């Protein structure tokens, strides 16, 4: 019969391994996020900024229009970066909760009732 210390120690090790596995998976996901979402959209924005600049040079756009359109492109860049930021946080949340869940299971098993939810 393992002691409470042994049970919790084992659970934390299992939780850490689960977190490491989740981190490895998330790492692959985030790499794919950058390849599939961030880079293509940044390329699109680069092309649109070039288009706006050229049309201003050609006199098709007024200064007001060009400034507005470029401000919106800047907003779109922020959105892309913030989206990947929130996905990183989301993966941290997933890893953290995997470890917390393992700890709660071990503690509840040791005390014989639901102490941690």
């Amino acid at each position: 019969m393992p002691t409470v210390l042994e049970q919790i120690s084992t659970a934390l090790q299992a939780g850490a391994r689960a977190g490491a596995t989740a981190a490895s998976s998330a790492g692959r996901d985030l790499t794919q996020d950058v390849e599939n979402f961030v880079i293509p959209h940044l390329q699109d924005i680069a092309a649109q900024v070039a288009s706006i600049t050229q049309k201003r040079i050609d006199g098709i756009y007024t200064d007001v229009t060009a400034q507005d359109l470029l401000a919106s492109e800047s907003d779109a860049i922020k959105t892309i970066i913030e989206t990947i930021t929130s996905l990183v946080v989301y993966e941290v949340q997933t890893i953290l909760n995997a470890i917390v869940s393992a700890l709660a299971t071990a503690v509840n098993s040791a005390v014989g009732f639901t102490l941690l939810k």
Partner: protein
Amino acid sequence: MRCAHKAFLAGLVPVLMFVGGCQQQFVSPYSADLQKRATDMLTDVSTWEGTMRNAAGTAAADPRNPDVVAKLQTWNGDIEAMATIEVSIDPGSTACDKFLGEISTAVQSALGPTATSASGSAPIAAHCETLPDIFSRMKTQVSERMPRDLVQQCQVPWLSDAYFAAMAQNRATTGAPAPAKPQPAAAAAAQPGTPTAAQASLAKQRCAALFDTSTSAGGNTLHGDLVGPLVTELAAIIYREGREAPPAAK
């Protein structure tokens, strides 16, 4: 670099303090409703872009046209509806925000005052949950910049305000009793002018420039300059929700 590393560790502490037995929620959970609304709006924006491209230089693309006004108002409502969903599921300020603040401070410190003052803007992400800021920017685009840019590029000089006022009134009073309809004098003032060929050509070029599509280096069709950023923002919301979606919803 060493200082930045210490700041990073200091920022990690509040996050670790949360490891105490309950599940953490740093970002808004998946919302099928939010994902659907963003998808529907993206479809609507794309369709409207094609319509405006074809109508460039005519009354149909003029920002005074009731249809154009109504479309922008619809999108404004769509964004507000999505923001309302977000408010209902937003986890609020968390220890994660403090952690992000520490990271931001460490990065700015590492970059030095010159780099940070040159950017002249707030940190890119101040909160772990970023949707509220995204909706706020989308609203600015739809309610302020787009109407202003349409006035600059698509307002045709040979049509008067009275012409569009009469158009709006005719639509509002279709089937209404006669006294509610435009009076003859007002109708006369609302008669359209006739552009020269050069005027018509210039108006079409200036307006169509906002909606012209092109092909990226990767072979993708790019949206026009006016709706491109909005499309990117909607795509970001859809992508994010898709990543958070449970397997059964993917």
